């Protein structure tokens, strides 16, 4: 317990001193193809076949990810948000090539500038590049093998890749990693069941960071945790980012977490990006009706501060089914601003800010320029 307290104190101290990350924030400005980008994803697609009947004939496709393009600049956090089934996890897994994409390219650039096209690498080369990419999952209870000790779990990447062969050296390395996630190194002989959810997520983070990655995909890393522990893990991720110069692709459905953690945000709806830009600008003035509805739907604690209460937009109906995508704009059956053209013509992703030379703000809506949508935050008061 005392150890956990110390960890929390460390964290608080760390957050105060987290200014290094602010220098990275500017990085989001750079356009695709800049040498500053860790990741450039172009037209990424993943279609899953729908199989039916005795002969498992293909009767259709789930367009889980459809022509998704984005980049992640070094040192920044890009959040992928959207509701269940919109393709966030599939995008994250395709980027790591944990599953094979159906199309598109993923360019990964190491710290030393060396570039790889993840989608075309041969298997062995892929494995050696994947060590620069870490992954953290949602569920800290099932993502750790219960039969292995913490030492074995965190040490595994070093052993399988034959990076460390001496036991003492391995123990030292694991102790150092445990300290970096504010866990007591003497815990390394214990099994996962002896830890709380928050501690297990720290172990999972230590494992993801083991090979000193440039880039980390975090898929809902706090969703399964108690509220009080979520905050500890979020602060830890923020501190580690500045200490280790990490770049994050952060997958979540929680918009408050996005606002707290990410520099830029990409909003997905049924496999496509519908809005992408700086977190502050999107949250204070969303340009896509779906983003507006998402922001408006989040319940807030009424603390009595003036001007917080907002007019709530309640969307009709359910999230669209990616195996049966609506025609035209995929959001049209639920959109409060729908017009005839939306039912027929698919809107393209256009850059609203590009024209006047400010930061890119991509929106997929026929009326992005005309609608005056409502955001959240202090700007409103």
């Amino acid at each position, binding site marked *: 317990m005392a150890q956990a307290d110390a960890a929390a104190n460390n964290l608080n101290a760390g957050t105060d001193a987290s200014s290094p990350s602010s220098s990275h924030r500017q990085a989001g400005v750079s356009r695709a193809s800049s040498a500053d980008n860790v990741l450039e994803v172009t037209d990424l697609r993943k279609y899953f076949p729908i199989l039916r009947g005795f002969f498992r004939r293909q009767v259709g496709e789930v367009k889980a990810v459809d022509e998704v393009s984005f980049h992640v600049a070094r040192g920044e956090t890009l959040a992928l948000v959207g509701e269940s089934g919109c393709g966030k996890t599939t995008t994250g897994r395709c980027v790591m090539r944990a599953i094979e994409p159906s199309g598109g390219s993923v360019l990964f650039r190491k710290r030393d500038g060396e570039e790889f096209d993840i989608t075309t690498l041969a298997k062995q080369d892929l494995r050696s590049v994947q060590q620069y990419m870490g992954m953290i999952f949602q569920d800290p209870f099932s993502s750790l093998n219960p039969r292995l000790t913490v030492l074995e779990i965190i040490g595994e990447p070093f052993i399988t890749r034959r990076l460390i062969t001496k036991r003492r050296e391995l123990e030292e390395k694991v102790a150092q990693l445990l300290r970096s996630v504010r866990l007591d190194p003497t815990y390394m002989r214990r099994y996962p069941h002896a830890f709380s959810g928050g501690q297990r997520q720290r172990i999972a983070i230590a494992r993801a960071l083991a090979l000193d990655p440039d880039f980390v995909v975090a898929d809902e890393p706090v969703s399964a945790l108690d509220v009080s522990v979520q905050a500890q893990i979020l602060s830890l991720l923020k501190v580690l980012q500045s200490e280790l110069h990490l770049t994050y692709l952060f997958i979540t459905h929680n*918009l408050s977490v996005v606002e707290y953690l990410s520099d830029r945000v990409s909003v997905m709806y049924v496999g496509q990006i519908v809005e992408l830009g700086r977190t502050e600008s999107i949250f204070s003035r969303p340009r896509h009706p779906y983003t507006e509805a998402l922001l408006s739907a989040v*319940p807030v604690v009424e603390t009595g501060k003036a001007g917080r209460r907002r007019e709530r937009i309640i969307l009709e109906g359910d999230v669209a089914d990616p195996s049966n995508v609506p025609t035209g704009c995929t959001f049209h059956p639920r959109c409060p601003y729908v017009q005839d053209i939306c039912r027929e013509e698919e809107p393209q992703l256009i850059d609203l800010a590009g024209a006047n030379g400010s930061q890119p703000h991509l929106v997929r809506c026929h009326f992005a320029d005309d609608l005056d949508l409502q955001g959240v935050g202090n700007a409103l008061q």
Partner: protein
Amino acid sequence: MSQTPLLLSVDNLATHFFSQEGILEAVDGVSFDIHAGEALGIAGESGCGKSVTAQSILRIVPKNGKIVTGAINLFQNGDSVDLVQLDDRGQQIRQIRGGEIAMVFQEPMAAFSMVYTIGNQITEVIRLHQECSQNEARERAVEMLRRVGMPQPEQTIDAYPFALSGGMRQRAMIAMALSCHPALLIADEPTTAVDVTIQAQVLELMKDLQRDMGMALIVITHDLAVISELCDRVMIMYLGKDVESAPADVIFRDPKHPYTVGLLRSVPELGEGHTQELDPISGSVPSPYRRPTGCPFHPRCPEFIPDVCDVDLPPQIELAGGHRVRCHLYVQD
């Protein structure tokens, strides 16, 4: 607002589980009142005893658990009955369950059987509690489905639960719970399993129904914002204890218990931007089998008073305005 009549009064309820590992004090001395038409939110982290409190009221505590002390008085038509004293499989509690008091769960699949249509299941509930013909029951079911915003209720009533989307299933479950016009609806994590746009629909629906039907509501959730949207009063639980309770506008503006303060500082607030500081509570909730001595929150409490908090269980202190807190900081001597 003038006070409506008292509907349910829970007094010093304790529900424990018994196993080889020992006695688990899942709910340990919880008290609260609900008046007709009022909405109470029960919040706290996983394992603090929220669901077991609800199970105790409906007398559906699992077999290895038992209500060991306390009273749960339900007031109806000038009469009162102590639910704790009823036979948990007797006629009287079966009439109350689904009749006066209904419940919706986190996972709608748990409320429905997969082999009957939702119409079959809703009409069965109606006929269990009300004298009416099969046709009348079906009409009421359609009406209820329409009321909860189910698209094409005349057709959907013949759908099987698995054929409905998550949001529609949630609506069907609420329709079933409300079909007998309960005086009290207990909603255990009603929106945790659904998306945020669907959550907004369900919260709006519950607000409307509560207002229109004059029904009282207990909302159980770990999400304080959901409670803030729906409830008049809030009770915060920690390790089986009701550590703080107060009117919603008071507790969110002026929380007294260090645990409540910590919970409120742990969640990033939408609209507060990139620079907001989170102030997490240190450590994590201890195992319920190793409950700390004295105040159960003391190992994590920033206000900890040595030799007091780790020794004596704090008493429940009444502050002004119906605000109650269990903490030594507020003891006056």
